[in-house]
């Protein structure tokens, strides 16, 4: 097979799949190129906890053999991916970046691990993350801290830190993150890639180390919207092993990939996302305002909307998240607290100090927020905002409360369970990426994909790669 592009590592999934079909590239060549790049760069970037070169090359050879026999399984066949290190992988250590699980080797795959393997993907390895999917980059957790490829002194976001770094640095073509308060969309925004959290119940969470049962979501992180659609297609759908899994049929997401927004209405709750608050970065808002102009130029109607309870989301989300996390980790927190990193140990302990009245009230506020969002979604197709209130902060000065002090623009949609995507929409004057967040009706991922794809195609930010 002939190698065509000069930078194989920056291929999108769609591009690689097209080259495979034309027999201009083989999964073995692509996998080898990525493994070599990981070997060369990951000492600095620290995206990976575990690299699986032998397993990956074996899977790539299998995919190549199948293709040579004319058996193409689909757009993910032969595509080198990686998984956040909280997705169970049979026989491969799965740590959640914690010494508590440092030696844990699952005997079974997570449901989504199996589904991606069935789609023919090649697993390159397991990616770094913030310990137990919480908080920030903690040097005391005992695991590598991934760096932002756009500026190594800045965090890539989290908790799916290695997933953001891995895709943006060309160390894998796609990955799965997980999201309890923004851990897919946040690193996607900070690293100028695409990340989508599908509707709660759309993707199985069986075999995924939990942080908060009622807030956790799984979803893809990739260079482009279409690549995320391909990955979501592979992992979505009912799983009897996950009691929260939906039986709603899974539509064909590729149908949504249209460069047309005519007839769409986009709601913007400016009172919250564009508020005059010193914690919200003005350059980020200016960048997102330009993105809204682009959406309008594509035929969308922009409508200001009001969701009053957004102001309480930042109070409710941590109560639910940390209370549920405490319940899951209580035994380990009491028996072996020294195994937790300092940041996570402190915040998990905080989860034990909320009262039952706090938790119930947070859940009540959550329902009010959900009802308000439902009312707005009767008027508009999607809700747009910046993904993050600031660009990626530096490692220097990051402490246990840094994440807690900022305004979360992503957490509200973990509370409501709505699908939400982050798509690159530009850079600050300092050269740090900014993301546009689009959230939609429950199980209406097609409309979210349609809006994000139309914007991506018009704006072209996904063509830009970090200076590595």
């Amino acid at each position, binding site marked *: 097979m002939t190698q065509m592009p000069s930078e194989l590592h920056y291929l999108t999934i769609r591009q690689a799949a097209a080259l495979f079909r034309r027999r201009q590239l083989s999964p073995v060549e692509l996998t080898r190129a990525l493994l070599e790049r990981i070997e060369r760069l990951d000492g600095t970037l620290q995206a990976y906890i575990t690299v699986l070169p032998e397993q990956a090359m074996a899977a790539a050879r299998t995919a190549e053999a199948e293709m040579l026999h004319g058996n193409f399984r689909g757009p993910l066949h032969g595509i080198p991916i990686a998984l956040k290190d909280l997705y169970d992988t049979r026989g491969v250590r799965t740590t959640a970046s914690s010494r508590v699980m440092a030696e844990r080797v699952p005997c079974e795959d997570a449901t989504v691990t199996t589904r991606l393997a069935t789609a023919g993907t090649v697993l390159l390895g397991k990616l770094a993350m913030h310990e137990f999917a919480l908080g920030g980059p903690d040097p005391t957790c005992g695991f590598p801290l991934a760096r932002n490829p756009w500026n190594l002194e800045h965090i890539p976001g989290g908790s799916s830190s290695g997933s953001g770094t891995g895709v943006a640095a060309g160390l894998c073509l796609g990955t799965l993150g997980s999201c309890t308060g923004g851990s897919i969309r946040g690193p996607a925004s900070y690293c100028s890639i695409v990340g989508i959290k599908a509707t709660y119940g759309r993707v199985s969470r069986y075999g995924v180390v939990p942080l908060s049962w009622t807030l956790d979501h799984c979803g893809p992180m990739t260079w482009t919207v279409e690549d995320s659609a391909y990955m979501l297609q592979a992992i979505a759908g009912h799983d009897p092993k996950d009691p929260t899994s939906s039986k709603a049929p899974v539509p064909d997401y590729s149908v949504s990939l249209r460069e047309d927004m005519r007839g769409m209405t986009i709601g913007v709750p400016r009172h919250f996302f564009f508020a005059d608050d010193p914690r919200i970065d003005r350059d980020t808002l200016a960048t997102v305002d330009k993105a809204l102009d682009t959406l309008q130029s594509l035929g969308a109607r922009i409508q200001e909307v009001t969701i009053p309870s957004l102001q309480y989301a930042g109070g409710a989300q*941590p*109560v639910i998240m940390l209370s549920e996390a405490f319940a899951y980790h209580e035994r380990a927190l009491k028996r072996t607290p020294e195994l937790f990193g300092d940041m996570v140990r402190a915040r998990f302990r905080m989860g034990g*100090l909320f009262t039952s009245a706090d938790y119930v*009230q947070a*859940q*009540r506020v959550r329902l009010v927020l959900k009802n308000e969002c439902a009312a707005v979604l009767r008027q508009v197709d999607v809700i747009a905002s910046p993904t993050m209130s600031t660009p990626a902060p530096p490692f220097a000065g990051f402490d246990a409360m840094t994440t807690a002090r900022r305004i979360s623009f992503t957490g509200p949609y973990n509370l409501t369970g709505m699908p939400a995507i982050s798509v690159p929409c530009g850079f600050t004057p300092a050269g740090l990426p900014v993301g546009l967040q689009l959230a939609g009706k429950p199980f209406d991922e097609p409309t979210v994909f349609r809006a994000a794809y139309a914007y991506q195609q018009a704006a072209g930010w996904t063509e830009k790669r970090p200076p590595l």
Partner: protein
Amino acid sequence: MAETNGIALDTLRILVEQAGLRLSDTELTQMQAMYDFYREDVQALHELDLGMDDLAVTFPPQWDPES
């Protein structure tokens, strides 16, 4: 120390022990600031008048915006 300026260390120590946790004095002092930070937001939740509606505390995954 009056609790209007934040939780007293002795009060926090009782809460921590009730939760079954054992913290060093240094950890307890660090927890004091975190507790006060979160408590302010939680207090705002409690001050909301949500009425007497039957608000479920569970989160059903299947929700319908049209209903």
